[in-house]
C-alpha cells in the first residue's frame, strides 16, 4: 500500500460518500472518530514485520474516500484479526471490524485470497473450513475416539444459498 500512497491522489478518485457508507455498516460505526494517533499501527504485530500493512493508513484512506485504493489493495488481507488495535484504540474505533467491513466490500468485487476461497469450498463440501481427511475419520476408532457427529449438509446448503456465501465459491478458478 505504501506504493499506492506515494502515487499522487487525484480528486477524481475520491469518493466522499465512502466514509458514510462504511459508518452505516455494523463494525464501521466509529470510523470517523479516528484522529490518527497511530496506536493501532504501533501495537500491531503484523505491522512490525510487514513493509506495507499499516492499520492507521487503511483507516485514513477510508476516511478520505480512497475507495478503490483501499478495496483493491492486497494489504487489506494482512490483518491477523488479533483485535489488539481494537482493544487499544483510545477513540474506541473497532479497527479490526472496520477492516472486516472493508474486506466484505472487497470480496463483493471478487478480491478474495485463494486460501479463503478454499475454506469456502471446504465448508460447502464438508461443512467445515478445514476438511477432515478421510483417513483421520477412519483412524478415530483405533485411537479410541467416538465417531464424529454427523453434519446436516442439506440444511447447511439451504442456509448458504440464502446468503452471499456461494458466490465466493463459484468465483473459484476464475
Amino acid at each position, binding site marked *: 500500500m505504501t506504493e499506492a500512497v506515494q502515487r499522487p491522489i487525484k480528486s477524481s478518485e475520491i469518493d466522499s460518500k465512502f466514509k458514510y457508507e462504511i459508518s452505516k455498516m455494523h463494525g464501521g460505526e466509529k470510523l470517523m472518530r479516528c484522529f490518527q494517533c497511530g496506536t493501532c499501527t504501533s501495537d500491531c504485530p503484523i505491522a512490525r514485520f510487514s513493509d506495507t500493512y499499516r492499520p492507521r493508513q487503511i483507516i485514513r484512506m477510508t476516511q478520505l474516500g480512497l475507495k478503490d485504493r483501499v478495496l483493491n489493495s492486497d494489504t487489506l488481507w494482512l490483518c491477523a484479526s488479533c483485535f489488539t488495535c481494537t482493544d487499544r484504540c483510545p477513540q474506541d474505533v473497532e479497527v479490526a471490524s472496520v477492516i472486516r467491513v472493508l474486506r466484505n466490500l472487497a470480496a463483493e468485487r471478487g478480491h478474495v485470497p485463494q486460501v479463503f476461497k478454499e475454506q469456502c469450498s471446504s465448508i460447502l463440501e464438508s461443512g467445515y473450513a478445514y476438511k477432515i481427511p478421510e483417513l483421520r475419520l477412519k483412524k478415530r476408532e483405533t485411537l479410541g475416539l467416538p465417531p*464424529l457427529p454427523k453434519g446436516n449438509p442439506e440444511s447447511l446448503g439451504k442456509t448458504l444459498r440464502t446468503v452471499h456465501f456461494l458466490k465466493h465459491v463459484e468465483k473459484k478458478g476464475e
Partner: protein
Amino acid sequence: MKYAFFLGCLIPAREPQYENSVRKIAPELDMELVEMEGANCCAPFSIQSLDYMSWLALAARNLCMAEQMNLNILALCNDCYESLLATNTILKENHEVRDKVNDILADVGLEFKGKTDVKIFSDALYEDVGIKRVKDAVKKPFNGLRVAVQPGCHLTKPKRIHFKQQMGVTALDELVQATGAISVPYERKEACCGGPLRGINDEVALHVAKQKLDSIRAAGVDSIVTVCPFCFLELDMGQLEIKRHFKTEYDLPVLNFADLLRMAMGMKLENWEIKAHRIPITKILNMAGAK
C-alpha cells in the same frame, strides 16, 4: 455440568490428542460432553471477512442447535470460541440483525432465541468446575515445571465480547499453576502467534512466531502451554520451519493445556499422542509425576 460439545474442524483434523485429553479429563471433573449432531463450521475470521450475514448465519446455526439441546456450548478452539461468542453477543444485543438472521434460518426451521452461553474449555474449568476441584484432581503435580502460557488472541480479545476481559489469561495461568507448574511471565505473552497469516503471507507469519519464541526463550522456560490449536501448530511445527529459515533452534516443547492437566491427573499420554508433537516432549514426560 452438561455441555453441547463443539469440536470444530482443526482439532479432529490435526490435533485429535487435544480432543482425547478433554474426553479423558471431563468425566473425572463431572463435565458431561454431549455431541452436537448437525453442527457446522463456526465461521472463523476468514469467513467473517467475506460476508457478514454468511458469518452470522453459519455461527447462529450452531448456537440454535445448542439452544434446542438446552445446553451451553463448550468450544475447544480459540477461533470457534471467538466466532460463536461474538455472534451470540451481536444477536443478543442487536434485534435488527437478529431478525435478519432468523429470517435466513427460518428456511431450515431454526430460530435464535439467545438462550445459550459459549464457553471455552479453560473458562469452563475455571468458572464451572472451579480451581479447587481441579487442584484436588491433580495427583501427580508438575512441581517446578516452568511454563510460558500462550493464551492465544481470541481467548480475551476483543474486550467488547469478553466481559471479564483479562480473566481468560488469569484463569489459564491459575489453571496451569494448579497442575503444580509455574506460569512464567514474558514480554510478548498477549501477542499473536502469526498463525492467521498462513497462506496469506508465510514470511510475515514466521517473523511474528519467531518474535514470540524469542520472548519465551528469554523468560527461561521448559515448555509452552496453550489452549488454541492454531497457536499449537504455529509454535510447535513452526519451530522446525524457523530452524530452516532463520537457523535458530529453540527446542521448546509445546503442550496443549488439556494434555498437561491430563498428565497431572495421573493419566498417561498414549504413544500416538506423544508422537503428534513435532518438538519432542520427552523432558515433560520425564517430569510428569517425578515428585
